């Protein structure tokens, strides 16, 4: 598996895990005192800042993945809203995150397909 494929696999796994956190937030939206959770780092930050003992994933060009303000690795509680259920989960924010995750996952899957197509092209020569 080449570096690009490895990176894309990690990205998909990361998006799946973030989707799990968002799903948990939505499910707990009516529990009093519940707090929204999200990853502390974006995917770009997470692969630049690996856990001790692990090597960072290589990015072929610094412009390929732009740092995002919100975002993997450690999970933290978000404290930004207080709603009718007396908790700190905003369904609107979670829906926005969900749409974002869906779009990013689609993009990563498309890039993966293109990458696989290029590899096939190299092997077949046409």
């Amino acid at each position: 598996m080449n570096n690009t494929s490895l990176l894309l696999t990690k990205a998909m796994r990361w998006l799946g895990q973030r989707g799990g956190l968002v799903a948990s937030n939505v499910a707990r939206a009516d529990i009093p005192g519940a707090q929204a959770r999200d990853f502390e780092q974006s995917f770009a930050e997470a692969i630049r800042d690996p856990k001790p003992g692990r090597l960072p994933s290589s990015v072929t060009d610094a412009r390929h993945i732009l740092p995002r303000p919100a975002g993997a690795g450690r999970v933290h509680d978000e404290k930004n809203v207080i709603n009718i259920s007396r908790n700190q989960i905003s369904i609107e924010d979670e829906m926005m995150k969900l749409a974002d995750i869906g779009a990013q996952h689609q993009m990563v899957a498309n890039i993966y397909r293109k990458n696989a197509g290029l590899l096939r092209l190299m092997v077949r020569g046409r």
Partner: protein
Amino acid sequence: MILGGILKLASSALGAQSTRIRVISENIANSDSVYSDGKTPYRRKVTTFEAVFDRKAAIEQVRVRQINRDPSDPVRRYEPSHPRADAAGYVQYPNVQPLVEMADLRDAERSYRANVQVIETAKRLFRNALDIMRA
């Protein structure tokens, strides 16, 4: 969390929300029930949820913790001709306020739809991953 976990989590939330909707509909249906246990009028029910960690699936599911009775006083209306009227002519009606119930119903519906959307997104992520194999 794998996609199957997301589906399980969202479905637990759907179950909890549908119970909430059922309780609200009970409240609305009984908003004029002056007899409940033979003595007192119907008392409004309130649903509370709790997050429970499912070790097997490694996810935090949502379930109904309890369905309590609202302890607020019944509504007193002056209807001297009513068979349930007391000596002063007042009838005790359930402490159900249709406006509050409708607002609660809309909130439950919104949460239900949000969880359905989570299931739709999880399915889309799964489809994206499967489509890679077709390429």
